[in-house]
Structures are given as structure tokens and as C-alpha cells.
């Protein structure tokens, strides 16, 4: 701590009320909403040369259906936010990477113009988004030739840099970006041999399965995986195998598919290096910070929203969430409700029970009236999601169909949690299960 302060004295050149890390959909929406609450001294820090985040490379449409009742492309969707930020004169520092974040909200930044410097913030909103799970992280077996790309990188190379990555591709994983890239590669004259999915159900949204694979007659092979990449210099083929219930390869089911490119779409991971550095507690289920119903992390004054908090299915919900986080950060700065999460004993802990992958926010006050975000662990039909206090069912909601690829949003009914007995020093727990 004293080391932090000392080096800050050497380097801290400015102080800001609100520093937002990342000018993607989360950061921009959070900035606008904080501004509307009355915060004026806002700085958004963006590592790219222009704001917009990942949407800049998402040139397909389908964004904004919920928020604007319109199918926009990624750049069109984010342009609305970029324009508004510009109209409000909110400052964006582009081409600048945040390389450090301390518990006392000192942000270390590096860029070409100023070199390495520090800013002290009254409040910080984490909006860094996510990164892609790599070949190494899934233990992809075989050789390591040229021609293996994660789907987002492939999308960046093709859509931003106009670089064609290959002519004959296999896609491992059926996450949304992989599905989008299957269509994109096909439209640009490459042949997509197959999309291989380890699980018995797709990882991406149903609408993308239809619009990106079925419409182009690209085969989706469920319960299969790549057990060997072949090729010394460049990818030459992949060996694909069926898997059993334990996801282990089944001998005798191997098939060799010739290709020059392997695209990986095997999941996104919230990018929480800075959060860890600031000592923020993470939820192993989301791999993002543990937050209260004010989107506050365990470190007072540090808020969080968007894909750095948990992976969203559609960007519209990122914008919604970020608006809320912006309001809360503004409240903190304007001293309306300076709560100290983690130290406040009056929280109810929302526990992800059977069949629920995660529920967010994890900590809510008894008078919470907002929305829960949650995901199920596996697909199901005619299921009920139950909110339980002990054995007592507080609330239930029916779904005709649930999929892990889809983020569910459940508004907390009035008075749902007010009846909960709060024992001093012990958070009450409400368990959410699928039945």
C-alpha cells in the first residue's frame, strides 16, 4: 500500500471522478448513464485506436433487436453510443492500455503519447470485456502448424485487416463467433468442412445455428472433437472423433478431415487480470468479479459490467447492465449511497444450485427490485426455475425451453426477499435450482 502511494506520488498526474476501463459497449453505456446522473469528470480508457470494442469487427447484423427493435450491424449499434458520448463531451483516451489497477483505485496507463503514467480515480468501472479460450487452454492435441486461429482473431484479421486466413476450414466449437465465422468464410469463398462441437448441444444461439450453418448447408457435428491436428508447416488435416458421455474420445469413430485452417470457438473468458491485481474476489462460475446488486465489486468504488463480469449472449443486455453500473458508480461518486460491499452484512447470497451455472448479482439486499441474470447448465424443456429459502419455494418461473447458450433474465418480484431472516453477521442464502 505504501509502495503504491509512493510511486503514485512520483507519477500521478491527474485525478478523475470516474475512470472507465474499456470503450466497448459496456464502457460507453456506463459512461453515458453516469453522465446523466450528474458525473462530469469521466475518462474512458481504450486500448484500440477507436472506441467500439469488439463490435467494430462484428459486421454481421442482429444487434439491437431488444434495445432498438432493429437489426443493426455491430458498428451501427455501437455508433449510436459513440455519437452520444461525443455529444456529451465525455473524454476517451484511445490507444492506451491500462496496465495496472490498485485497490486504492490508482490506474496505471501506457500509451505512445504520454508513456507510462498514473491516474487516481474516485470510482472505477471495469469494462474490459473478455478474451477467447485458446488452443492451449483446451489441450488441443497434435501438431502446432500455422493455420490455427481463434474465431475472434480470425474475425479481426478478415474484417478489420482484410486478410484471408485460409481456404478450407474446420471450426472446433459452436460458440456464436465460430458460427458467425462459418458463414463469413463461406461468403468469402472458403469452404467450411464442418463445425465440431464436443457437447451434445450447440454452444451458440439457435438463431445463429439456423442463419449461419443451416442456411449454408454447413454440417454441425455434435458430441465430436478434434483429437489430432496434422501438418508440419501449415494445417493439413484434423482427426475428428466421437466422444462418449464423459466427453472421452470413442476409439473407432475417427475421421480425418482435410483442411488448411482450424478455427477455435471454444468459449470466452472474462478478462480479469486487472481485477485480480486490485484484489477483487472472483466467482469461479462466472470467472468475473463477485458483485452486489449495485454492480459493486468487493473493493469499494470499483464497479463492473459487461463481459468482464460474465459472458453475455447478446450485446443489448450488456448495454442494459452497463447503464445500471453507471448509475451506481455515479451514486458512489456523488455520495448518495456509499455502500461498502462485503462489509455490509445485510446481503442475501444468491446461490447457484442444481442445474444453474451461475446467478448474478451474487449478493443482493432484501429490498432488491432489479433483475437477475443467470444461465442453466444444460438444455431442458418445460422446466421450472425455483428460488428457494431452505425448502420453501419463494418464487418460480416456467420455461418452455432453456439453453446454456442463452442468458436468462428474471426480474425480482416485489417483496421476494424481504421476508428473509437476516441473522447479523451471517448472510442469508437463497438457492436457485432448475426442476
Amino acid at each position: 500500500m505504501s509502495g503504491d502511494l509512493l510511486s503514485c506520488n512520483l507519477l500521478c498526474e491527474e485525478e478523475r471522478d470516474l475512470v472507465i476501463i474499456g470503450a466497448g459497449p459496456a464502457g460507453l453505456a456506463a459512461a453515458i448513464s453516469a453522465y446523466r446522473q450528474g458525473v462530469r469528470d469521466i475518462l474512458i480508457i481504450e486500448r484500440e485506436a477507436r472506441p467500439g470494442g469488439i463490435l467494430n469487427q462484428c459486421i454481421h447484423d442482429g444487434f439491437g433487436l431488444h434495445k432498438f427493435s432493429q437489426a443493426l450491424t455491430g458498428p451501427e449499434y455501437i455508433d449510436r453510443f459513440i455519437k452520444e458520448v461525443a455529444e456529451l463531451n465525455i473524454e476517451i483516451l484511445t490507444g492506451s492500455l491500462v496496465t495496472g489497477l490498485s485497490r486504492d483505485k490508482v490506474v496505471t496507463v501506457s500509451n505512445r503519447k504520454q508513456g507510462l503514467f498514473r491516474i487516481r480515480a474516485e470510482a472505477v468501472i471495469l469494462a474490459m470485456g473478455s478474451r477467447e479460450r485458446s488452443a492451449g487452454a483446451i489441450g488441443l492435441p497434435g501438431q502446432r502448424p500455422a493455420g490455427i486461429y481463434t474465431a475472434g482473431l480470425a474475425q479481426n484479421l478478415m474484417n478489420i485487416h482484410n486478410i484471408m486466413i485460409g481456404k478450407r476450414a474446420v471450426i472446433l466449437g459452436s460458440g456464436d463467433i465460430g458460427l458467425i465465422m462459418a458463414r463469413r468464410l463461406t461468403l468469402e469463398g472458403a469452404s467450411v468442412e464442418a463445425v465440431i462441437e464436443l457437447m451434445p448441444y450447440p454452444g451458440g444461439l439457435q438463431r445463429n445455428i439456423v442463419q449461419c450453418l443451416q442456411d449454408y448447408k454447413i454440417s454441425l457435428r455434435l458430441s465430436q472433437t478434434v483429437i489430432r491436428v496434422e501438418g508440419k508447416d501449415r494445417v493439413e488435416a484434423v482427426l475428428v472423433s466421437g466422444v462418449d458421455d464423459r466427453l472421452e474420445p470413442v476409439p473407432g469413430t475417427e475421421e480425418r478431415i482435410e483442411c488448411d485452417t482450424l478455427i477455435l470457438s471454444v468459449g470466452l473468458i472474462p478478462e480479469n487480470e486487472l481485477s485480480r491485481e486490485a484484489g477483487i474476489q472472483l466467482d469461479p462460475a462466472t470467472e468475473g468479479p463477485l458483485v452486489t446488486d449495485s454492480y459493486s465489486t468487493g473493493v469499494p468504488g470499483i464497479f463492473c459490467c459487461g463481459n468482464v463480469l460474465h459472458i453475455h449472449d447478446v450485446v443489448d443486455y450488456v448495454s442494459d447492465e452497463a447503464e445500471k453500473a453507471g448509475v451506481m458508480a455515479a451514486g458512489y461518486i456523488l455520495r448518495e449511497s456509499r455502500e461498502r460491499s462485503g462489509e455490509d452484512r445485510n446481503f442475501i447470497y444468491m446461490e447457484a444450485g442444481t442445474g444453474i451455472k451461475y446467478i448474478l448479482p451474487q449478493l443482493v439486499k432484501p429490498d432488491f427490485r432489479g433483475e437477475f441474470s443467470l444461465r442453466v447448465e444444460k438444455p431442458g424443456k418445460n422446466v421450472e426455475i425455483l428460488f428457494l429459502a431452505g425448502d420453501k419455494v419463494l418464487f418460480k418461473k416456467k420455461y418452455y425451453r432453456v439453453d446454456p447458450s442463452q442468458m436468462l433474465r428474471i426480474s425480482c418480484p416485489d417483496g421476494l426477499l424481504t421476508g428473509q431472516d437476516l441473522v447479523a453477521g451471517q448472510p442469508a442464502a437463497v438457492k436457485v435450482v432448475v426442476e
Partner: protein
Amino acid sequence: MIKQRPSFDIAIIGAGIIGTAIARELARYQVKIALFEKDADVGQGTSCRNSGVVHAGFTCPVGSLKAEVCMEGNRVFADFCRELDVPYKKVGKLVIARDKEQIPELYRLRYVGQENGVDLRIIGWDDIKKMEPNVSAAVAAMHSPDSAITNPYLLSIACAENAVMNGVEIFLNTAVRDIEWKESSYLLQTGQGDYRADYVINAAGLYSDRIARMSGEDNYRIYPNRGEYYILDNNKSHLISRLIYPVPPLNSGGLGIHLTPTVDGNILIGPSTEYIDKRDDFSTTVPVLEQLLKEARDFVPGISAKDRIRSYAGIRSKIVPPSRGGFGDFIIKASPTRETFINLIGIESPGLTSAPGIARYVVNMIDQRENLRRKNDFQDSRKANVVFSELPETDKVRLSRENPDYGEVVCRCEGITKGEILSALNNPLGVRTVKGIKYRTRATMGRCQGGYCLSRIINIMQEAGMEFTDITLNGGTSRLFSGQVKGVI
């Protein structure tokens, strides 16, 4: 018209750690040296695919050549790395006995080690627990304080760069296809033209038997033996502070799957031991990768599948056939028919440790015949490029403000700046590949494995005048891209 063929006193074949260390050692003398490498960069075979361990010498049979060069290597390694500005950390090693049956083997190893002059002691569970609190229960261990770690590929690069500084000519992408004894010198035929040399040093590692055959030496055979590895995220570096080895399994031909802290803060799991048919099959495999994770977790339960960031495989150039197993001694011998053709065969573990010793040994062989004369302008030290993330903060601030290229972070995970990428791209060996940048800077080696920085590195290579369609991962046909998406309108 007869083409003048470039002619050298000494041709070294293979720019792995052995070839580059020999080149650097020979460069101290007044001789004209050529170093031939088939790959696009140095150290691309076994030298970049091992544990990076500087061994103390307790597994080398007493009286063997291996023991001699390994002990010498271990003795001089810290200085070797200091001169070449390559990381070296004397972290020490524990060889851990998990049950009582393994204890006699610990004592045997200690005996062998002590005969070789290695400082070793046997410790009990209480001491193990104190030294490595994350290791699961064991009965005893042998502690070797002189075992160390280095960065094996940076060391090959550093040796090559220092050799080049001192006049050695290096020929990358130049495979030696045949060697003829003609008009009292060797004629080396390569894909890139012919060269003459008075001496040939065969440091071709996995291909050393094939090169030996060109000298008429048919008795050697390399049996490739593959070892697979996992690399773990550097956020797990706290789990171990020294090398954690099992008691070596009998006759496996390996040292057992161990945990190696790297100089960069990652942990390596591996290597496995498996004889394979092809000496260029660097594939990792499903069952072995599973086994690695299982054995690592048996040792350190805090390791999980989520910590993996990469897998890779290296291949040992063994001279003992699968039917016999175990280890053979290093062979460093002149061809019986030609004393000026020196073969180095079967340089597997501890080849990296032994490299300085082997280099001295080979130079002595030539010196005995030629009475080599020292150069008086030999420069024994070489400076590494700036590693921005390792600088003290005041230097970071100064450098990033003086030179904007150090203010631009390219690789988020490892904190690598554009300045470092540019230094790597302009390396003295003329290597211009993505892997060349990777090995020199660590860019793409972090937890996102290039997901973020690869397109930025490509941009920098384009800025430096390269056509993106010519950019390769590692030379040859390893092109990254097939063309433009849309042509220019």
C-alpha cells in the same frame, strides 16, 4: 565459368544449442566458421522443446563422457548465461520419493551424484513440507541445491548472436543435403548452393545419424523419443519454488514427468517418454496429455486443467533402441576414416547443461590437430534486448516517454511493447518469422496465446516492409495467410 565456392575452415551443421555453443567457442580462435541450419531460426529442434533445466549431474554414470561435460557445464553455466545475458536461476531440485520402496533409489542417485562431485542431501517430509508447502505427502526427497533453470531457446539465440558478432557466418534455411570429400576438403551441398570446408562438425541432433552417414559412418542410428509437455499460466507460479522430480522410473529413458518452474514464471509439466517412428512428429496426444495432468496433480493438487495455456512436444535423439531403453553415453568422435569430420551423436538430456562443456571438448579436439590461435578481439559478452516488463519503474517511465514504441503495449498478457517487437524483428541473425519474434520477446506466449496481439504483430511486420502473404509462422511453407479478403477496388 567456374563459380567460386565460399570456403570455410570449419562448417558446423545444426544450430541448436550444441551447434551454436560450439560456434561461439570456436569463434575465440582465428578460424573461418560457417554454421548451417535447415530451419528458419536457430534452436528450433530439441533446443526449444525441453525443460530448460541446468542439471547438477547425479543421473550421469560415473566416469562417462556425459558426467564429464555435464559437470563442467553446471560449473560454468551461471557465467555462461551472464556473459550472454540470458536468464539463469539456481532454484534447486527435489527428487521426491512417494513411498518407502523408492528410498533406496534416492540413495543410489546420491551415491552416483557424490561420486561425480554433486552436493546432495536426503531430507524427510518435514523439510519437504517447509521447502514446498504445496507438494502432496511424500516420505523423503533428495535435495540438489545446484540444479538450476535457464531459457533454452534464448540461450541458442544468444550463442548464435555472439558467434555472429565474432565473425561466424550463419546460413539459415540451409539444409545440408550431401557432403563429399573432394580435392582435400569437404564439399557441402545445400539447397542454397555449395560450400567448402576443411572441418565438418555434425551437431545435427535428431538428424545427426544422417549427417554422419555422409562421412561414411554407417553405425549410428537415432531413435526418436518424444516427450510431451503442458505449460501452465504464470498466475500459478507460486505453487512451486524449485524443480520437483519423481524418482526416475527404471529404464524409461526419461527422468519421469516432473514440474519445472520456468525463468518466466510458468510451470512446465512433463516430459513423457515414448519412442516414435518419425523424427519430426511433434504432436501431442490425448492419452499422454491426460496422463501429464494426472501426474502433476498427484504431486501438486493445486494444479487444475484450467491452468493450462499450451502443450508442446520435444523429441530426444536417443542412441539406445526401444528394446534396451534407458540412456546411452554421448558420442563425440571423429569419423574413423576422416579425423576432420567430428560427429556428435545422441546428445539428449543433459545436453543443454553440457553445451558449454561439449563446446570446449570439441574445440580441444580440433586444437590438438591444428594448434588454434586465439583472436585478440573476441567479444565474450552479448547484450539481450530490453525486457520492458522487467525494468524498474523509473526506467519504464523514462524509456516509455523517450521512445513512444515503449509506450505502446502490444502483448497484453506479457506486457510486451512495440519497441521490443521491433528489436526482435531486427535481430542480428536476420530471422523474420512470427516464431522468431515469439521466442525473442515472449509475445503470444501468455495466457491468450496471441488472440489479442497476433494481428498487432502482423501490422508491425507489415510496417517493417513485409508483405502479409509472405509472413510465416516459422519459415518454409508455414504461411499464415492465403491472401486478401477483397481486392483493392
